[in-house]
């Protein structure tokens, strides 16, 4: 069976994974109604906005390097699996990386893409990958290389940026049939932020400021919404999103990391993998 990240058009992502009959011609690109095109376009817009309007510390070559690394890993992985190459998923992974990841030597972007997509093919449980590819690179590389870091504050509280991310992202996530995850995560994150402020007696301007974080919105719309690494049922997804928000909030407010949700998503992934196997019998392999 295929691995998952946006591998086929929603909403039938979960059920229509089939191998192409041997000998059938493999079109390089999926049909245009595939929601992944929208996702890629949204990411490209956000990256351009960040570079042009917000002066991101990001060269176009970095985005290309991340994409190249991801595409190479996808190509090799698919080749090893004997499946046709599909560039859309690795491009989405590279887009997510480019939105949040920063590194000084350029090759680290390529490595981030390579590691992210490579993990899809190498770290598998029950026939599917368990880690959100982009999140895995965002977790590992800054811990490993001094020249790799995340810039969660780059987006600032620019209302416009937030609205742009939210608006564009929600449409895209909606088409990917995973808006429930996104909304559950955002609701839980907001509840925790406001709850903490109430508990500490802080002014509401603090949680409001915290919620205007571009990094949180990028995470909600482009990472946790990935259908491949979230539970298959709606109840499961909401529970998962709330758990990731809770763990991420704790990691962040305990100063363990500045990007708690990404770490939480990684920590929760093996559990999701196990639950998927327990809760849903694997579809028959053809």
């Amino acid at each position, binding site marked *: 069976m295929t691995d998952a990240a946006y591998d086929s058009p929603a909403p039938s992502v979960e059920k229509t994974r089939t191998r192409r009959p041997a000998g059938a011609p493999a079109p390089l690109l999926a049909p245009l109604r595939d929601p992944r095109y929208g996702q890629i376009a949204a990411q490209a817009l956000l990256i351009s906005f960040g570079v042009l309007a917000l002066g991101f510390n990001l060269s176009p070559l970095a985005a290309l390097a991340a994409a190249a690394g991801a595409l190479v890993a996808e190509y090799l992985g698919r080749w090893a699996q004997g499946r046709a190459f599909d560039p859309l998923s690795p491009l989405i992974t590279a887009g997510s990386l480019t939105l949040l990841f920063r590194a000084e030597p350029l090759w680290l972007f390529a490595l981030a893409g390579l590691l992210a997509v490579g993990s899809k093919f190498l770290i598998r449980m029950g026939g599917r990958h368990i880690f959100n590819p982009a999140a895995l690179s965002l977790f590992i590389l800054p811990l490993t290389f001094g020249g790799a870091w995340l810039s969660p504050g780059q987006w600032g509280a620019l209302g416009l940026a937030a609205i742009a991310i939210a608006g564009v992202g929600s449409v895209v996530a909606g088409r990917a049939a995973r808006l429930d995850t996104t909304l559950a995560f955002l609701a839980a994150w907001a509840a925790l932020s406001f709850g903490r402020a109430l508990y*500490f007696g802080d002014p509401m301007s603090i949680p409001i400021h915290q919620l205007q974080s571009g990094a949180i919105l990028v995470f909600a719309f482009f990472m946790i919404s990935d259908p491949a690494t979230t539970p298959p049922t709606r109840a499961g997804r909401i529970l998962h999103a709330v758990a990731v928000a809770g763990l991420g909030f704790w990691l962040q407010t305990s100063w363990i990391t500045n990007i708690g949700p990404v770490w939480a998503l990684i920590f929760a992934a093996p559990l999701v993998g196990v639950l998927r196997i327990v809760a849903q019998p694997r579809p028959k392999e053809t």
Partner: protein
Amino acid sequence: MRLLFAALAVGALLAPAAPAAAFCGFYVAKADAKLFNDASKVVMVRDADRTVITMVNDYVGDPKDFAMVIPTPVVLKREQIHIGRAADVSHLDAYTAPRMVEYFDSNPCRPHVLYDAAPAPTTGATQLRKEKAATRSRGVTIEAQYTVGEYDILILSAKESDGLQLWLDENGYKTPPAAKPILASYIAQGMKFFVAKVNLEAKAKAGGEFLRPLQIAFNSPKFMLPIRLGTANARGKQDLLLFTLTRTGRVETANYRTAKIPSDLEVPLFVQKEFGKFYKALFSRAVSKESGRAVFTEYAWDMGWCDPCAADPLSNDQLRRLGVFWVAKGGRSRRGVDVFVTRLHVRYDAKTFPEDLRLTETGDRKNFQGRYITRHHYKGDLACAAGDAYRRRLAQRWEREARQLATLTGWDVAEIRAKMAASGQDLKLLPKEKPWWEQLWD
């Protein structure tokens, strides 16, 4: 009565990145913290979870009225508190300040340095008054009490803000009402409080005009700068200059946008004479462009060198005195010294910066500086063949400089043009063009 001067937070300047390549101008002026009223300066040294903070307060007034309350993540021992030298911080300020350079159209390599003399530091002189530490329990525990240099220092922990505020009030500190919820929040987060006031006897013995910087060294995962208490003084917007000295690279804020100050821009010649005014206007405009919600990088550089140098790089001894524990004693920093300096400038109040600054060290070692360029036109004879073309280019260039300056500062463009003309940037002042036929028969 005492004033509770509760703040780590002051105004800061961030350095814009200027590519050092192709630099061939001369440094003519700098814009350091003295430009900004109410600018506090904080130096933060950070490596892993080791942190050294040097706080220079901008307190102006009677020393007996001085008191400072700073939230700290841990209870500090006597050995973790130290008195630093204000001169080291001033040097760091000067080294990282936004700068003006000049080029000459004819002979760019002829030095022509107009060095703005730096005014003396204006830190307020102070006297001290000894205070008895109150022992009454208000749910406030005096964890420790030290006299360090001219300061009496109390390390407090508290269970609730009512108790802490009462204790402070009873002990002669006047706390602004807005401080109370902030104290409560810090207490709930398990923060301790570092209270410093001036010991007048020790101050008299130590002599000196002003209060020296306090330094604290501790281990904590919290790479942050508490600024919230600074907003409780209700003095309006305040400026904070935060200098970080780290090993890996540039420091930025994780919970606010960090923007680079506009840099490497050509401005008219007369700006040399009013560089301070220019930079203040530029900074204010940059702040409002970001709706007051961004932190500005004014300088990010490897400590080993500079180009142009607004001041020499700090020596190893200076760095060690500021808390850079990983450099060897003695000697001068050489190129490649393992210290990266970032200068961040924040203008903040409770509305635009509701949360403390959460900092993060990046791997970015690209050099950046706030650098502004002036160009002197060629003043010799323009009767050569290329003279007319040069005259036309000059007209375009001056117009571009005028518009650029207006955009950067919000100044009136007509006034700028008038000032430019008054300072010699006027086509009418150039040597008159000779009739073309005179050149024909030369």
